[in-house]
Structures are given as C-alpha cells and as structure tokens.
C-alpha cells in the first residue's frame, strides 16, 4: 500500500551480512512510564509476530492509575510478548529481553520475578546525564544493581537518536523501539512500516512519515550497534492458517461472542477489568442491531437485562467481582422466576475493591452459592480466548433451553491476554430466533414443569393467552403467589433438577497428558479458567521427565461435568491448582480442621468425598509454567520419597 517508503535495508550502510541465531521462543517486555506508548509498541510487535506465523501471547502491564507519577516502580506500563515457534497459551516464565524507557519502571517487574539471570535489558541512557542529581544517582545505582543481579544491561541513547528526527522524543520513541525489536528478531521491516501507516494514516502523512523514520532509525541503530539478531521460525502450519487467523484479547472475544450469540443487549456499569468488552461492542454493536445500555449502577444494569430477557430478548450483563456482589438479589430473582440471562464475570483480585487490574479466580464460590436462599444456576468458565467467544454463544442457548441465568466466568488474564485464534465460520444457528408472538395454549401454565427434568417453556409478553405475572415470591405452576409448604418444596426441586438434567447431556472431560483416557497415574491436577496454558505446559515438562502426572480442566462448574469421580479414583493423588487463596497445610495455626481450601477444591471435596488437595496463590499475576512445574515437582518428589 505504501511501497514508496524506503525500508531500512535499502538505506543502511553495507555491513557484512550477519547470520541470525535460530531460537524457538523469546519473552520480550517493553516497559515505560504511562503515556510513552510502550503498549502500542508491544501490541504492534506482537501483531507483526502473528503475521510472520509465530505463536503469540501478550499480557498488558498496567498501572492501576491513569496518570501515575513518572519514573516510579508502580507506574510501569507496557507489554509482555511471548513469541515462539509453537502456539502460545500463556505468558511463560522470566523475560529474555526487556526494553526499559527508564530504570525505575523495571523495579516492579523485578519484584514480580519477571526477569532472570541473563535477561537482556536495553535501557534508555538519557537519565545518566539528567540535570537533576537525584535522577542521575538513581540511574547509576539501578544500573549497577541490575548488573549485580545478573541482568545484561545495555545503556542505549534512544532519546538522542529520536531527537535527530523529532523534537519531542516522548512521542515516537516507541516506534524507534519497535524498529529496534524488528531488527533484533529479524522481522520484515515492511510489516512494521505498514502497521505504522495503518495506525496513523487518519492523522495524515505528516504523522506517518516521522514515525516511519523513527522506525527505520531504530532498525538501523540495532543493526549497527547491537549484537543481538534472532530468528524465530513460524510454527508448523502457520502459513496456511494466516488468512484464517484473528488476533484479539479475551474481552474482545467476549464482545464478539455477544454479537454472535444473537443477544441484542448488553446492560452494564463500568468496572475494571470487564468494561473493555463493552467498549469494544459499543463501537460495532449496531452492525448486528444491538444496543449497549450503561445503567446507573450494577443492580440496575442486571435489572434492565432481566427486563429485556423477560420480554423475550435474552440479554447479557458484563461485570467483575464487586458488581457480582451487588447483583446477587437480581440473580436470585432470575433463578426464582426462571428468566434466561447471561452474566459474564471477568474476575479480578478481591475481596472488596481488591486488585482491580489483576487476575484472580476468587469468584467461583460466590458464583455458585452467592445468593441467599437456594439458587441453582448454570456456571461455566472459559479457559482460553477462543472459549471467551464460544462460551457466550453457548451461554445464551443454555439460558434459554434451561430457563435460567448462566454465569460465565473469565478473568483479567484472559481479558487482557492477546492471542491469534482461528476465525470462526459464522453459523446462522448462533443467532436467536425471532420471539414467538403466536397465541399460547391457555391450558398450559406459565411454568409447566416436567416432573423429571424441571424444564418448561415460557410465554413471552405479546403472546395472547399466555398472560402471567412473574414473581420472586414462591409460586405455583400458574405463577400464583403461594405460601403453601408443599409448593415451595416441589418448585425448589424443579429448579434444582434442571441442573442435573443439563449434566446428563454433558461429556466426560478430556484428560491432558495421558496416552489413553483410561489411564491412571500418580498425580492428577484439576483446574479451571485461564490457568490452562501454564498448567498444561508444566504437565508436559514433568511428563517428559517421566512422571505419571496428568491434568483435567473443567469448563462446567455447575453442573460439574460427569465422570469425575471415576477419573479421580484412578490417581493416587488429586489436587487443584487455582488463583485464589488457600491455607498452606503446614502454616502456623493451620490444622486439618481449620484449613481453608482453594475454591474448586472445596467444591470437589464436598461433592466427591475424596481428599483432594490444592495449591493456590494470589500474587495478582497469571500462573507461570515454571512456578507450577516447581510446585508439582516438590509434590511428586514427596510422593516418591
């Protein structure tokens, strides 16, 4: 499209051709102060990797504040990109190469264990000559400390190089860095230039040109000054998939799922980390005839959705933990009145306001049992970004088929993780059929519960002769208020029976890490949600070392998928790995009688009366495969000892 642009290869001085070093994956981080564009740089670098056929997983590094103070550890903003020659399912372990716009933002990453002995750090060096003595000292101290800790630090005049092209390096340094990275990882420079063109074309050539010049400058700078030159080949089959692949984060996938599900309404209230799903849909919802309602609060948001659902237009509300807490009474109404409804909970750290931008899996028990009174409902959890899309479609269908709210759990890791995935072929059956307005058979009550399954069809307002009053009070099959004790017993049973009816339609889940699904072993790890990539990678590592270990990832939490007890019995030990809090068994004060287990472990122990152990942490970041491998190795060693 812009073939007149000169690529850096054409303008660079002729150097002896350097051979790129083949590697199978790298983890790259770009970290700056908020507003310096590290995120844009990271996203673009990841997109280029995707176009070159690499597997990609991207994680945002986000400060909790909009404009945190400059040069502070808490203010770091940017991206982690795991790029490799296989499909990536998680953020990986420590980074291999880091670009820091200042030294302070790297401290928080170091504290998070993001770097290792040998991590390459490309650091902006302008701080060494800063007019303020304090900054000069901080910089010198940090560089010294980084080196002592095993980081390989290269102090680079990025600012100085940028100032040769633009007056304000703050705007544009990210493109210089993008150029550097494209050279270091042997990316086609034309892809970077095209991305820049696409990003800035609406601002005109006067913006495109300097950004492309900065890119070229960064590319040449790296070529002429850095020894690093890597090549990450595409994964097998990537080239054939390229034109079928889309790249999104999990929240966008949820948004696309809503659009594909036939739901025409998202009723929401702003809450981190859920809101970006609604932001995305707000831009494009009119394309499928939908509407986003921003309500005055979380309760009104779900109330509005319930109203739309009651009137025949099954709706969706998207929130996070604190919002879920506020919605409980309405969820109870939807359960009691048997109103189809989809509730997406993008989990964050809790309790209370907790860690708004960080990942946790602490809402499971609240989703299952959060409402006062017995409120059985369907609870499912997406494990991958494509599942964020698919499960919304499934949730709408389940909600209508089983006449119940469905809670879909995702989390901040899925919400902000970016991955290429296969673009689905649109099926018309995804969309909801037009609402039924034909006359209702008067003889059929509004809740014509099937004795065995608890299932019933619902009349939709507008259907002649279907008139009934939906109520949150205990009610008869004709929806008449009833304080009769027998009615309450039997209707509770019907609502509960629907969950069992759904389970009877589900398949036994597939075990990961076994040659045959009938196999048993020493240790079975059971998990749910976004941890799948890290856990399965760890299982593969341990299996390669000869351990009899496997994992099982649950998508359905209410009802549980069938066949679990039989599977659990084939393993010497069963444990869950989760991102929520649990007591360490050997911690002070902790005994068998008071130990609090991780949430899924709680559910499974109660359901199967098996001594299921757990390991769970709440550091606020996604699980790393290395951490999981280490923890499981310890357990396996103890078992084998």
């Amino acid at each position, binding site marked *: 499209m812009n073939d007149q642009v000169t690529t850096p290869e054409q303008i660079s001085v002729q150097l002896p051709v350097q051979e790129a070093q083949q590697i199978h994956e790298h983890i790259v981080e770009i970290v700056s102060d908020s507003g310096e564009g590290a995120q844009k740089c990271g996203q673009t670098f990841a*997109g280029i990797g995707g176009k070159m056929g690499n597997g990609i997983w991207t994680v945002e590094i986000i400060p909790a504040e909009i404009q945190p103070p400059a040069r502070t550890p808490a203010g770091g903003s940017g991206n982690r990109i795991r790029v490799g020659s296989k499909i990536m399912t998680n953020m990986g372990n420590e980074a291999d190469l880091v670009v820091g716009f200042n030294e302070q933002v790297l401290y928080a990453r170091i504290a998070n264990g993001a770097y290792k002995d040998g991590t390459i750090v490309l650091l902006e060096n302008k701080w060494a000559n800063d007019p303020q003595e304090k900054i000069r000292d901080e910089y010198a101290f940090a560089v010294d400390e980084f080196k002592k800790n095993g980081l390989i630090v290269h102090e680079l005049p990025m600012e100085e190089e940028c100032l040769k092209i633009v007056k304000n390096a703050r705007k544009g340094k990210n493109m210089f860095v993008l150029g550097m990275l494209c050279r270091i990882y042997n990316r086609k420079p034309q892809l970077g230039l095209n991305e820049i063109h696409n990003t800035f074309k609406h601002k005109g050539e006067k913006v495109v040109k300097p950004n492309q010049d900065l890119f070229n400058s960064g590319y040449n700078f790296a070529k002429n000054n850095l020894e690093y030159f890597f090549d990450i080949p595409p994964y097998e089959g990537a080239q054939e998939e390229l034109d079928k692949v889309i790249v999104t984060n999990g929240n966008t996938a949820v948004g*696309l799922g809503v659009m594909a599900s036939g739901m025409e309404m998202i009723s929401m209230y702003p809450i981190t980390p859920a809101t970006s799903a609604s932001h995305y849909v707000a831009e494009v919802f009119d394309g499928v005839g939908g509407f986003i309602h921003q309500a005055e609060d979380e309760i009104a948001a779900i109330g*509005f959705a319930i109203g739309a659902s009651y009137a025949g237009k099954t709706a969706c509300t998207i929130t996070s933990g604190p919002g879920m807490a506020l919605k409980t009474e309405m969820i109870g109404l939807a359960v009691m009145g048997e109103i189809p409804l989809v509730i997406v909970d993008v989990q964050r750290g809790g309790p209370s306001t907790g860690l708004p931008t960080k990942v946790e899996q602490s809402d499971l028990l609240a989703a299952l049992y959060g409402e006062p009174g017995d409120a059985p409902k369907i609870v499912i959890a997406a494990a991958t970004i494509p599942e964020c899309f698919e499960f919304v479609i499934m949730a709408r269908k389940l909600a209508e088929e089983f006449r119940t709210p469905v809670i879909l759990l995702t989390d901040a890791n899925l919400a902000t993780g970016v991955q290429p995935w296969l673009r689905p072929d649109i099926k018309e059956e995804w969309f909801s059929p037009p609402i039924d307005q034909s006359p209702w058979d008067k003889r059929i009550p509004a809740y014509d519960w099937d004795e065995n399954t608890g299932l019933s069809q619902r009349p939709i*307002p507008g259907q002649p002769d279907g008139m009934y009053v*939906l109520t949150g009070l205990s009610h008869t099959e004709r929806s008449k208020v009833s304080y009769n004790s027998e009615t309450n017993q039997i209707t509770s049973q019907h609502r509960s029976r629907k969950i069992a009816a759904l389970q009877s339609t589900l398949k036994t889940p597939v075990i990961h890490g076994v040659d045959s699904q009938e196999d048993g072993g020493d240790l079975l790890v059971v998990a749910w949600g976004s941890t799948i990539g890290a856990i399965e990678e760890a299982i593969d590592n341990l299996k390669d070392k000869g351990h009899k270990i496997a994992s099982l990832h649950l998508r359905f939490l209410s009802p549980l998928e069938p066949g679990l007890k039989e599977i659990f019995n084939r393993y010497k030990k069963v444990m869950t790995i989760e991102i929520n809090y649990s007591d360490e068994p050997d911690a002070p004060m902790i005994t068998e009688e008071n130990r609090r287990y991780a949430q899924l472990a709680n559910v499974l122990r109660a359901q199967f009366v098996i001594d299921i152990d757990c390991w769970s942490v709440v550091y606020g970041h996604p699980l790393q495969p290395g951490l999981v491998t280490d923890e499981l190795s310890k357990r396996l060693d103890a078992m084998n000892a």
Partner: protein
Amino acid sequence: MFGIKADWSLEVLERYFTLDDYGAGGDVRWCSGCGDFAILNTVHRVLRDAQVPPEKSVAVSGIGCSSRMPHYMGTYGLHGLHGRALPLANGIKSRRPDLDVWVATGDGDCFSIGAGPWLHTLHLNMDMVILVFDNGIYGLTKKQTSPTTAQGTKTNTHPNGAILPPLNPLTITLGISNISFVAQVVDWNPPLLYETIKVAHQHRGTSFVRVLQRCPVFSEEFTKPLQDNPDRFVLLEHEDGVAIDDNVKRLFHKVIEHDPKDWLGAMKYARDQVNIPLGILFKDPDAIVYEDHSSVGVGMTNEEKAAGLNAAFDKFSI
C-alpha cells in the same frame, strides 16, 4: 370497538376487551378502605377505554402493598424486587417498544430504596406510566417511617415522631433533566384520578404520577385532613392538562390555570406545602425517549447480522 370502513359500512373488530379482561379474576387482597383499589380499577378502565390488548400490556412492580398490583391484572406482569421495578420496566421496553408498560410502586419502594432508579428512569424517559402509591408510610412491613412521612408522625421506627420533614417527590422529579411528565392526584376522586391516569397513559415518555393514597390502617393522618378539607388543594387546569368537569370543580374550590409547559410555574406549585397541587404539573412532549435509541436494530435479519459480524471479524484479521 367499531371502525368505519371507507365504503361507510360498519366493521366489527375481532376482539373487544371488557374490564374483566384487565383483571386477574381472583380476590384482590388489600385492606378494607385502602386507596389502592381505586387506582387498580382506574387502570383497568383506562386500559379498557384505550382497548390495549391485554397481552400487549405489562404491569411491573417492586415490593410493598402497591406492588401487588400486577397480580390483580389480566395482563402480563413482573413482580420484581424492592426498589427495582423501574430498571426491570426499562429493560422490558428497551427492545420491545410495542409493549404498553405500567409500573406500580410506593413511597418506600420508589423514593427510598428505589431512589437511584427513580432519578435515572425519569432521565431515560421511556414510554411508560409510573404510578406511585404514596401513603406516607411503609405498609407491608407495618408502619415504618417513609421518605414522605410527615414530620412528627409516630411510627414503629420513630415512636416519638418522624425526625425530619418529608422529601418532596415533586420538586425532586422536576429537577431531573429530560423529564417529560409530572402529575399529582388523589385516589379518592375517581373522575380526576381517571383523567390524570388517562392523560399520563396517552403521553409518550415516562409519566410520573404521584397518587396520594389512603392507608386507613397505618397512616390515616396522611390523607384524612386532606380528604376532609379540599381547600388544601389547588387544581391545575389547562387545555393541555387534564379535563376537569364541573362536578370535580365544585369539590375543589381553588382552580388555577397552569400551562404544563411552564417548568418554573410547575416548580412553584410543587414547592407549595399549603396549597397542594393536583393535576398535570409538567409535560414536555419533545424530551428524548430512550427506546428510540435502545430499540434501533430490532428486527435485523440474520443475513444482516452475519454481515455485521463478518465486518467485525475483519478488523482483527492479520
């Protein structure tokens, strides 16, 4: 009922609805002497006279004595949660502008626990009628102070008398931008009640009607002095307001001409605690009606949706 065809012959429409079609048939279980009966009967009459098909009408409520109303309607109904009738009603209307929506709520349900939805629903201005059954007391939970309980009234939560002066729902309502209809009426004057609710129903937008309502069990003092002394009221009259016949005028001696477009005048009457206004205080037919926006795209075909979804996917291709 009857329509006259172009050839001047009479056409009998297939369906004609009687009052019975709008009732639920069973017992209405409010206390003897409760003002709610009058409101319920009036709603039935307004629906009958408008010949709204019962299946097209939805009565929505929260929790409280007033909120039992949907159970006494032959229409569809949604008896929701305390304070949350309005978000439910808005949601119903959002993608189903064809439905005729009524909300029954009370002074506790609307002005106290439902205060947030109250303000924001009026702001949204979706086409529905909100009837606030205001008896100045919590009835169903047995005589607690409500936001409109008069100062000094002895209640079970304030045995020495309510501490604060009551909220004024009319001035609060009038203070909300995009408001389109505010009326006040009493339950014990059937012609005025009928006319007010009829005009509210005909208005396109959220019609907020505060009905001063008798509760002979818990708050007789809230309405008794008013029933005994019609001179406490001023009747607001205008060709764009309610039609007030001479019988009504004979009862209420103070009748004032008030154009419902006059917001400042409405605020003046709303603030008046000595001469309590009855009739239409404010009406703005030009306010934004939210479902005109929220229902865009209803009825889009699957082909169109597939095209929209494909276009959305295209943006993420690499």
